[in-house]
């Protein structure tokens, strides 16, 4: 069967010593930075993106993917031990995970999270291997109008399913699209929004924007808040292995979380965060003893943790097969591919099968590594939690600065990153999530290109988007989403869902 052949090819690539090494380094660095407080996964990836540029594309991507799920996993460690979610997708893990830790069951909570994540990782790796090829075939049949409509759907769905004001998020997308236009117009050769600065004629690098908005912006935001009081669970973690009772209660939750997360991850705007929130709600509702939730229910850790890992992995499917990023992390991955000279889209699978399958195989290996790295080394990660932020931010600041400089080899990029950092802080301050901006930025040039091509096909008639059946269907889905969000009843439900 093709599936096994493909996976064999993938494991052949992923199991070479060099790639194993990069997967391990990625997972280690990702966990390290994920554990450190105040640095989210987007900032982590943005900051480390430049490091991978000097590698061969496949190794670079394997390392980036390792960083991604390492950071994901590190985030849950801090959630359980310090009640500080390292990132939004582990917010719900805090609720019961930290309570378990306070009752002296920190080891069990960590182990359940790790084992649940590993199981979810295995399942979702298989799912990617099964569903990516057929989806890519669908993608290959798309013309310019279909692609344009698909991107519109991707962008709108991403903000509807994310939290926060939809209107502001769409405005942030448009802003990102605008920033993406900076540089030379590929069709006419004229420069746009370059202010006469030579360095800007090649456009703004995705790493510069991401490091500025997320890395630097996060530093400023963190420093402007009063230092948080951390309630680190100080007692020693003695017992790592969960009890038989924990196992009995956790495994159905792991199964439920994995299936829910795998489905939600594929949706644009889905991915880890939505999955974990939905899984927590599902566990709480379906539990026979809902009263235990919030007081250290093991299901409240197992469900969301499996779900966020499953969702994080299956969100690679639309990115790899259609070239559409569902969330900011995937947008950065697309940026990384582009810098390596690879155009994301359905052709990746046929043109670079070794890279595609190698990356998928490395996801499974990376998950296994995380399990091995995390459980025995948990004591070391706990020590790291005690590093005060005022020491940390200087190192982060420096890494951001060097990173930006090395990616573009220009001092102008560093100045731009400073500017984006200030912008990132200002937008966060007025309650505008900066993440949609990255989505717009990455898709901007592609959208303009497809729009132009569609117009050329139809001799300038915009009705082409409504005449092609697939494009029409996609745009109707956009319309349906917009109507859904605008309906007052659903609006309040949506706010409620994210409040929980």
């Amino acid at each position, binding site marked *: 069967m093709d599936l096994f052949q493909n996976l064999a090819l993938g494991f052949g690539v992923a199991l070479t010593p060099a790639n194993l090494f990069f997967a391990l380094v990625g997972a280690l660095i990702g966990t390290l930075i994920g554990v450190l407080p105040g640095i989210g996964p987007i900032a982590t990836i943005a900051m480390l993106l430049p*490091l991978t540029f*000097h590698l061969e594309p496949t190794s670079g991507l394997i390392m980036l993917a390792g960083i991604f799920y390492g950071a994901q996993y590190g985030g849950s460690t801090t959630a359980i031990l310090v009640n500080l979610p390292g990132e939004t997708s582990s917010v719900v893990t805090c609720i019961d995970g930290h309570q378990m830790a306070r009752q002296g069951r920190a080891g069990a909570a960590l182990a359940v999270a790790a084992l649940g994540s590993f199981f979810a990782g295995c399942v979702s790796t298989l799912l990617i291997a099964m569903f990516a090829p057929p989806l890519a075939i669908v993608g290959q049949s798309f013309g310019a109008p279909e692609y344009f409509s698909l991107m519109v759907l991707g962008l709108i769905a991403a903000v509807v399913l994310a939290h926060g*004001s939809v*209107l*502001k998020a*769409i*405005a942030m997308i*448009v*802003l990102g*699209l*605008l920033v993406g*236009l900076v540089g030379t*117009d590929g*069709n*006419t050769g*004229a420069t*746009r*929004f370059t202010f006469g600065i030579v360095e800007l004629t090649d456009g703004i690098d995705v790493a510069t924007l991401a490091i500025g908005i997320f890395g*630097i912006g996060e*530093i*400023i935001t963190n*420093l*402007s*808040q009063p230092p948080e009081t951390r309630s680190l669970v100080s007692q020693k973690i003695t017992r790592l292995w969960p009890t038989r009772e924990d196992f009995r209660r956790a495994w159905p939750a792991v199964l439920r979380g994995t299936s829910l997360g795998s489905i939600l991850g594929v949706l644009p705007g889905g991915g880890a965060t939505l999955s974990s929130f939905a899984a927590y709600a599902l566990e709480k509702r379906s539990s026979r003893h809902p009263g235990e939730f919030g007081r250290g229910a093991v299901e409240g850790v197992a469900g969301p943790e499996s779900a966020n890992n499953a969702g994080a992995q299956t969100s690679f499917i639309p990115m790899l097969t259609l070239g559409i990023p569902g969330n900011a992390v995937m947008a950065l991955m697309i940026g990384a591919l582009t810098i390596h000279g690879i155009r994301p889209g359905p052709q990746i699978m046929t043109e670079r099968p070794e890279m595609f399958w190698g990356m998928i195989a490395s996801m499974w290996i990376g998950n296994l590594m995380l399990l091995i790295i995390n459980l025995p080394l948990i004591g070391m990660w706990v020590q790291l939690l005690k590093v005060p*932020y*005022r*020491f940390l*931010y*200087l*190192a982060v*600041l*420096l890494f*951001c*600065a*060097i990173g930006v*400089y*090395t990616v573009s080899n220009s*001092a*102008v990029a*560093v*100045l731009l*990153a*400073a*500017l984006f*950092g*200030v912008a990132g*802080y*200002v*937008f966060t*301050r*007025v309650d*505008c999530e900066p993440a949609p901006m990255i989505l717009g930025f990455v898709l901007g040039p592609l959208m*303009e290109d497809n*729009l*132009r091509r569609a*117009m*050329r096909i139809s001799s*300038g*008639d*915009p009705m082409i988007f409504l005449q092609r059946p697939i494009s029409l269907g996609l745009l109707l889905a956009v319309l349906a989403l917009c109507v859904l969000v605008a309906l007052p009843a659903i609006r309040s439900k949506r706010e409620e869902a994210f409040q929980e």
Partner: protein
Amino acid sequence: MTPAHDRQIPAARFRQIVMRNDVLAGLLFCAIAVLGLLISRDYPVGTALRMGTGYVPHLLCWMLLALGAAVLLQGLRTTETERPQASDASAWRPLIFVSTSLVLFGLCIERLGLVVSILLLTGVGALAARGLGFLETMAAACVLVALSWAIFILGLGLAIPVWPEW
């Protein structure tokens, strides 16, 4: 709305409204859109069939302007009581020193090399947080110089000048 609100001095009431997040965000989006339109006013727009350089920028700027206006309206119409905002005074310090340290780094890296640039970045950057003493900053700077030299020069072999070029 409580009668207390009506009796407030108009200026204070105005300030309160303007400081709402949605109002600020709306104004910000509108300002960026107008700026974009101004900059791109000379870009040829062309037709839908033969799109000029300015076609998409203009389209996006008008969209942003509309969205900004909608966010602004939403903010003005809101009737819920404003949440007490954390004072903005504490943000100036990191805002200024973090960005300045980056700008300095960018300006110095090519001429003065990695070591001097790192010292400048940590020195100025350290002013952004309270509670970092002089000795602590010095120690941090030394560790960072050693670390980045090991990772970027030794490990990755990047061609960044380490010392000032005479």
